[in-house]
């Protein structure tokens, strides 16, 4: 008991741990909400693409002394538009368009990095540096998170309608295209929010795993949002503490915590878990 209190209380004496927890929990919650729609629209690969494609933007921001979010957002949204353009204007299918655009962007980022003398900051871009997050970065992250939350709160029913039945959305005079664009824009911003917490390579986990975990645990979309947010926030807290105590990479620890949550749901979810399915099927087979 005492040991548990110590586990959680001692690190809080450090200013950098307070900031790290704030950033990773905020990023975890925002990503978790978006991940619910990613799971249902089958856009998980797109999350991977956007996160990799922001690399040159982040490097350029660093070189030009701009806030990291500016370059990241430009390249994130730009790559989404580029994927759509390649897909629409040629016979290349979407999965190939995604693969081409994100690797090309990532390649440009790697080339840019190789021309930069200091390598430490760039390790932070790739793998996150939530323990060293600066004041200006916190401001950017909180502003983007607040914006995303406000839009998601106001438009979540439309986004769900889009994910479920875009043809009906069209039939009642809404624009599925505009809803798609909104969801893509939210994805771009969300990915950038989580960059500092887990880094470019692992960001995709944040916009895929919580939604997938929650999807195994409920048949109600509102609950799915709540569960995903709770699971993701818990993973952020546990990962950040584990990183402090065991002296391991924070981003990696958070993602491993997310994955553990998923494995538990995958095995033990009451209705959709593997065990529950087995138990339900066996009596039918024998009887």
């Amino acid at each position, binding site marked *: 008991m005492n040991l548990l209190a110590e586990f959680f209380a001692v690190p809080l004496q450090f200013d950098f741990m307070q900031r790290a927890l704030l950033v990773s929990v905020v990023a975890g919650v925002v990503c978790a909400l978006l991940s619910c729609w990613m799971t*249902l629209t089958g856009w998980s690969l797109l999350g991977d693409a956007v996160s990799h494609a922001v690399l040159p933007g982040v490097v350029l921001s660093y070189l030009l002394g701009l806030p990291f979010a500016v370059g990241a957002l430009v390249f994130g949204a730009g790559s989404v538009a580029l994927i759509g353009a390649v897909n629409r204007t040629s016979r290349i299918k979407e999965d190939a368009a995604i693969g081409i655009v994100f690797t090309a962007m990532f390649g440009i980022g790697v080339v840019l990095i190789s021309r930069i003398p200091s390598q430490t900051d760039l390790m932070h871009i790739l793998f996150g540096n939530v323990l060293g997050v600066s004041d200006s970065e916190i401001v950017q992250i909180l502003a983007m998170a607040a914006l995303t939350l406000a839009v998601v709160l*106001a*438009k979540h*029913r*439309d986004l*769900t*309608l889009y*994910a*479920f*039945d875009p*043809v*009906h*959305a*069209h*039939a*009642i*005079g*809404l624009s599925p295209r505009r809803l798609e664009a909104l969801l893509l824009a939210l994805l771009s911003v969300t990915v950038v929010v989580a960059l500092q917490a887990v880094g470019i390579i692992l960001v995709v986990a944040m916009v895929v795993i919580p939604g997938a975990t929650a*999807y195994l645990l*409920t*048949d*109600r*979309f509102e*609950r*799915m949002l709540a569960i995903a947010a709770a699971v993701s926030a818990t993973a952020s807290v546990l990962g950040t503490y584990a990183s402090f105590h065991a002296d391991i990479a924070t981003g990696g620890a958070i993602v491993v915590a997310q994955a553990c949550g998923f494995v538990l749901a995958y095995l033990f979810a009451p209705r959709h878990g593997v065990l529950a399915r087995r138990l339900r099927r066996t009596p039918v087979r024998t009887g």
Partner: protein
Amino acid sequence: MNATEPEAAGAARQAPGPSAPPAVRTDGVTVRYGEVLALEDVTLSVGRGRICGLLGANGSGKSTLFTAIMGLTAAESGSVRILGADPAAARKRGLVGYVPQSEQVDWAFPVRVSDVVMMGRYGRMGPARRPRRADRAAVAQALERTGLSDLAHRQIGALSGGQRKRAFVARGIAQGARVFLLDEPFAGVDKRSEATITEVLSGMRDEGHTLLVSTHDLAGVPDLCDEAVLLQHRLLAHGPPTDVLTPQRLLEAFGIAAHAEGSAA
């Protein structure tokens, strides 16, 4: 049965007033997907308060005709009017109800039956789509109407084939749609559920709704439909079901039937 009787009744229903435009009117609609001609010069007029069966082989352009009517597929040439209005205006007013084919729906999607029906109301709500009392009342009424009140809280995939179809019909009713496009509503539905759906659809027709029903189920057409359309990229025939469903015309529309005839002979 007197052959002229239903025709006369149909004509009376088709023209509620001299100025009332038809429920759906297409004028020379042609749709091309790249090289493939999906619809060629389709001119069709369906009167108000009618059930019109849309028949044709797989890939004959039935679904394309629906998406062209909804304005989801751009026509290369030709025009569409819904209740005399421009399709975009008709959509904005919520006049068009759409019941998708089973394969187009993700039945594992975490929504309840009542959530799906509520989606019919979104066009009438504020930007955040927060349901008000009138919306809840419309949803309850639509569920009642389609016999789904007791299943309102089920996840959509936990319904039987026929109940699933009725849930989407209920969405259109809650929406206040006047023209319904139903894509294969009888596919994967057992005989008893088919009768229930037929009953619901007939009731809607009697209230003045217009229903376009695409179907493979030729046997059920005379019972359900006031008129039938035979489609094979072009419009082959349009008229009372008994006139349209002649062996000669079916042969023309369904290649497999022609093949069977040939091998039998």
